[in-house]
């Protein structure tokens, strides 16, 4: 293949597939959440007439694993800067947009791969996904992956080193995850929590996955899809802009 975008994508995917420890390591957390929360809170959820908690929880955990994997790939721009490889790409006669776009596609691909792994594991544990809408669920996975890789890239473009990483994890990634309704239903949440969740992009991704995989939705697939698509395009644009402004 001749395209820099494809080469950049391939690089990200190769790097991911070569770090077996990372793949396995990043499965630990979703499995823990599925088992501990799924079985731990499942009985409580049933008592409250919520139905099968695993069906509720699994889409949220899938979204979580895509969020973490993609965000991390985006932030890896900092590693590339530290270890010098970023310079090699930036002096090449290729537009920055192509470099960023290839990276982002690669990050999204690894995110989706991780999401599918979690889907399989959840199914083994007791999740019963609806098969008919799996292709649409994959679209949501792609959008979540693209969104958070772009977001990670945008942030990393402004950071010199990994010092800010914990800050991002604790004040951005974790709140995005916890306030998205991935772990608990938002319908009956207190009003302020509900309002905050409406501003959380992941809310629509989680809802979309839940709509397609578990047949339950708060906003409906149409709205979820529209919001996710628009937000992804916006963040992709911002990420590309910020990456273009990187100076070494």
């Amino acid at each position, binding site marked *: *293949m*001749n*395209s*820099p975008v494809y*080469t950049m994508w391939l*690089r990200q995917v*190769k*790097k991911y597939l*070569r*770090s077996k*420890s*990372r793949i396995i390591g990043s499965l630990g957390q979703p499995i823990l959440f599925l088992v501990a929360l799924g079985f731990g809170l499942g009985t409580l959820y049933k008592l409250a007439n919520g139905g099968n908690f695993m069906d509720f929880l699994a889409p949220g955990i899938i979204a979580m694993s895509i969020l973490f994997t993609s965000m991390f790939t985006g932030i890896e721009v900092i*590693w590339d*800067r*530290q*270890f*010098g*490889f970023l*310079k*090699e*790409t*930036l*002096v*090449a*006669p*290729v*537009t920055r947009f192509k470099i960023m776009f290839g990276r982002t596609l690669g990050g999204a691909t690894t995110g989706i791969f991780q999401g599918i792994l979690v889907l399989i594991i959840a199914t083994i544990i007791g999740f019963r996904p609806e098969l008919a809408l799996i292709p649409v669920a994959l679209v949501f996975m792609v959008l979540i992956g693209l969104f958070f890789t772009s977001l990670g890239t945008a942030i990393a473009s402004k950071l*010199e*080193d*990994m*010092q800010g990483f914990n800050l991002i994890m604790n004040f951005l990634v974790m709140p995005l995850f916890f306030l998205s309704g991935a772990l608990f239903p938002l319908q009956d949440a207190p009003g302020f929590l509900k309002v905050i969740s409406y501003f959380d992009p992941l809310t629509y991704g989680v809802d979309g996955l839940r709509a397609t995989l578990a047949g339950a939705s708060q906003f409906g697939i149409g709205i979820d899809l529209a919001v996710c698509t628009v937000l992804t395009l916006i963040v992709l644009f911002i990420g590309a802009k910020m990456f273009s402004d990187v*100076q*070494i």
Partner: protein
Amino acid sequence: MTLEKERNIIKVKKLVKKFGDFTAVDGVSFEVKKGEMFAFLGPNGAGKSTTIKMLTTLLNPTSGEISIDGVNPRKNKNKARKTFGIVFQDPSLDDDLTAYENLEFHAVFYGVPEKERKDRIEKMLKFVELWERKDSLVKTFSGGMKRRLEIARGLIHHPKILFLDEPTVGLDPQTRNHLWKFIKEMNREEKMTVFLTTHYMEEAEDVADRIAIMDHGKIIERGTAGEIKKKTKSKNLEDAFLKLTGHAIRDESASSLDHLRSRARAWGRR
């Protein structure tokens, strides 16, 4: 006009780079002839790397003019980028890819036709004696092997100019010899212009046709090694260099990058 373009492949006029209040490069002008080996010398923090970054489109100058093979790198970045190869002061390989993949990546990014890609990569890897290790991950390489690979990579797209920013730092004498022999060969056979910086004076004396000595952002002396020695009445270039730039030790502030590097090493990365 065309004649001049052919003679001077790099032209720099009154180049200035300021970072806030600090002037890193302060009105530098020079020319590099086609096919020449040109050395930039100077103590730490003299502005050598900043100059190279401006010549190679990584930094925008505050003011001044640059022409690389007749192209203004500020206006026509990608065209300028195709004309040169660069070996950076710090490593810039992807450790998680193999030697072959690193070169392939570069070849695609520089638009080397697919048909020629394999042959060129094979030739370059054999030239730097890394063909046997082509499928090894770069993280298993020693410092010298990485440098050789970087030089091979910088040459894959047949650049007219090769920028070498302290290419031999931390290498043993055998590897240094090997590298310079190789670069001289490329310079002679391909008429490739070489622009280098180094801290090793005997290296500069040995390989460079002309030398410019830089300090505090300005060029303070220039000429052949012989001319500079004669002007400063020194017996070797190192003496001349010390006479011109003084004996005080220069500090380069450690960037957050250096801190992180050492920390990343301690943590074994990820």
